[in-house]
């Protein structure tokens, strides 16, 4: 059971790291428009 003393703090570190990445992604506008990127492939290159 001693392993939980390592794993639980480790998971916390991981959670905070993922949270930080999520914050970065949101504040950079990655989630602003989820449709546009998929549609660009259907558009003419010059339009």
């Amino acid at each position, binding site marked *: 059971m001693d392993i*939980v003393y390592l794993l*639980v703090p480790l*998971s916390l570190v991981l*959670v905070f790291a993922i*949270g930080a990445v999520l*914050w970065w992604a949101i504040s950079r506008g990655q989630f602003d428009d989820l449709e546009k990127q998929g549609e660009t492939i259907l558009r003419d290159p010059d339009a």
Partner: protein
Amino acid sequence: MGIAAAGLACAHCGEPVAATRPEGSRYCCAGCEYVHGLRAGVPPRAPPAPARTIETVLQVEGVSCSACVARVGSALGAIDGVSAAGLDFATRRARVVHRHDVALETLLQALGKAGYRAHEARDAEAWERAERRRSLWHLALAGFAMMQIMMFALPAYVADEGTLPWDVARLFSLASLALTLPVLAISARPIFAAAWHGVIARSPGMDLPVALGIIAAFGASLPNTFYGGDVYYDSIAMFVFLLLAARHLERRALARTAETTESLAELLPRRARRITAEGFDDVECRELAVGDRVSIGIGEAAPADLALVGPATHFDEAVVTGESAPVAKHCGDTLLAGTVNLTSPVEATVIRAGADQTLERIRTLVERAALDRPQWTLLADRVARQFATGVVVLAAAGAIAWWFIDPSRALWVAVATLVVSCPCALALATPAAFTAAINGLARSGVLVTRARALESLASITHFVFDKTGTLTTGRLRLAHVATLGRLEGDECVALAASLESALPHPVAHALATASPRRVPRARFLNAVVGEGVEGVIDGRRYRVGSARFCAALAESPVPSEPESSSPGAWLAAEGAWLASFHFEDSPRPEAARLVERLRDAGCEVVLLSGDRRAVVEPLAAALGIRERVAGADPRAKAAFVARLIRTGARVAMVGDGVNDAPVLAGAHVAIAPASGTAIAQSQADFVLANPSLEALADALAAARRTRRIVKQNLAWAALYNAVSIPLALAGVLTPWIAALGMAASSLLVVTNALRLLRPAS
């Protein structure tokens, strides 16, 4: 030869008015007078006095429920110099009417004190985006933390009594605490802030019970984290997550209603091609000024309200009128901003630009309507405000009662009660429905200028059309030909049509359409202003026009003719009378259907006209209107409406004569069918931008649907709270079920209201 009165032009066709016309006449002939009388829009109103008050639109952040609406309104209204202020819950926009010397900073400070951040709506887009990101971040953080905390909480749930070592249990609790803190500090901060400001402003919203619930659960968990015992961090995180998720979805749904008005502005092109002496000049639309000439290609939208210079084309006016069939446009016709050129590239002159153009006016009207607070909303608001306080008191009472029954459950009962109550369903129920209905109607070309009127329209029993012209096309039609000489009626019509063919008169148009065969060519045409036309056909001289004018040619007095209601014209040849023509107006094709639909909806239709009986009777008969009054002057109309109302009727006046103040003031609702250009001046509660009268029946249906949905929403909110709060007090509900129920309830109310965005099937 008639002598033109100096400088006086016919109010209908622009031809000079002859001195031979009756004193004070503004028309060149009886036909013009008649048609103009029918078609006259709302007369232009005097320009407003120099602006002493101005209007500012603010984007307000931190609005979480509709208690905030009242709070923002009173915070702004308390400022010296502010005459009116209102907040639209859906768009989170506040409209403030204030003296021009009240600084923007003063408004923002007042809002800041009440707990809201605000900014001018001009840079709304960037703000909206930031707000959306923040809301997503709060939600994502809470959701992510919730899942992780659940993992840490699981051992405590599944472990048998005593098998989980004390120190391992503390480790899990501490880890949960570490994850709960960011949720409370970041995700739940708006909830705490709103609750706090509500307490300070003494009008607590739904955030207060929620915040108290969170604090109570957290306060109970904190000592147990270190000294052993149950912790409720998983419930806290889940509750915050569910609440934020519901609000996030609500926001997105309400943003859809706001989009309708926003998208109106986006219909305007950003740039325009101005024609200058050197050629084309690519300019921003807002740089356009009245009198500028612009060029519009096929598929392009008009950058401002324009007068067409040429050539003739077709425009798609669906954005303004809701009517999708292309509209033919000739020289001099008005092109409304945002409407799309369909057939040929044209040039046009700017007649209204910027905030004056029709599309902008429509947007202002719709936005203003959204800020109007109908009775139902006000009532719901009042209830919701006291509701929050009531829930806190109930929860406290519940906790005290359970303290004596089973102390271990007292806290849970209090938290569940605080969380499950949903004043928000109560407070959202009406504004969401109204906003959705107003935007849905605007899409089909019915503009609601006061939300209150939508409420009144639902209970209307009598539709009173205050003008014959509202139900007719305003185009003359040849009704009857009386021959006075040897020629057949058909021949007379052909002769008259030939003489009139070059004139842009309504009478000429009616004759041309009625002419049964190829018209003979007339030569030496000579139009005598205000009298008629003279010309030579096959070597014979003819005159068509007024009786006196023709009598001079016929060399005999006017044959006696029964007095007729409608305008007429005469035809004479040298030395002989030939025929007299009578014209009448034809009912609009959809008018009969409108009357039928209104009657199916249980409403009486009344024709209350100032026209003569001979005009009113046939029209009413053709449309199946039983109750009709002819020859009513404004005072008689007002008296008629007042009498109707005394008998318990609820009256809607339909007509472009809405400027008849006494009639308008008497009716419950005023509805103006309007050409696009008249929208700006209209004082009516509803403006039908859609050229089809049936839009009126649609509006009635929409108003009734709104009433039904508001009732459903309020009934649901009342039922939900009446059932859930006793259950929570009885200790049946756990906090997470309470949280789920509350979130689902407010979502249900909002989605129900959004059904109004769809046009009626």
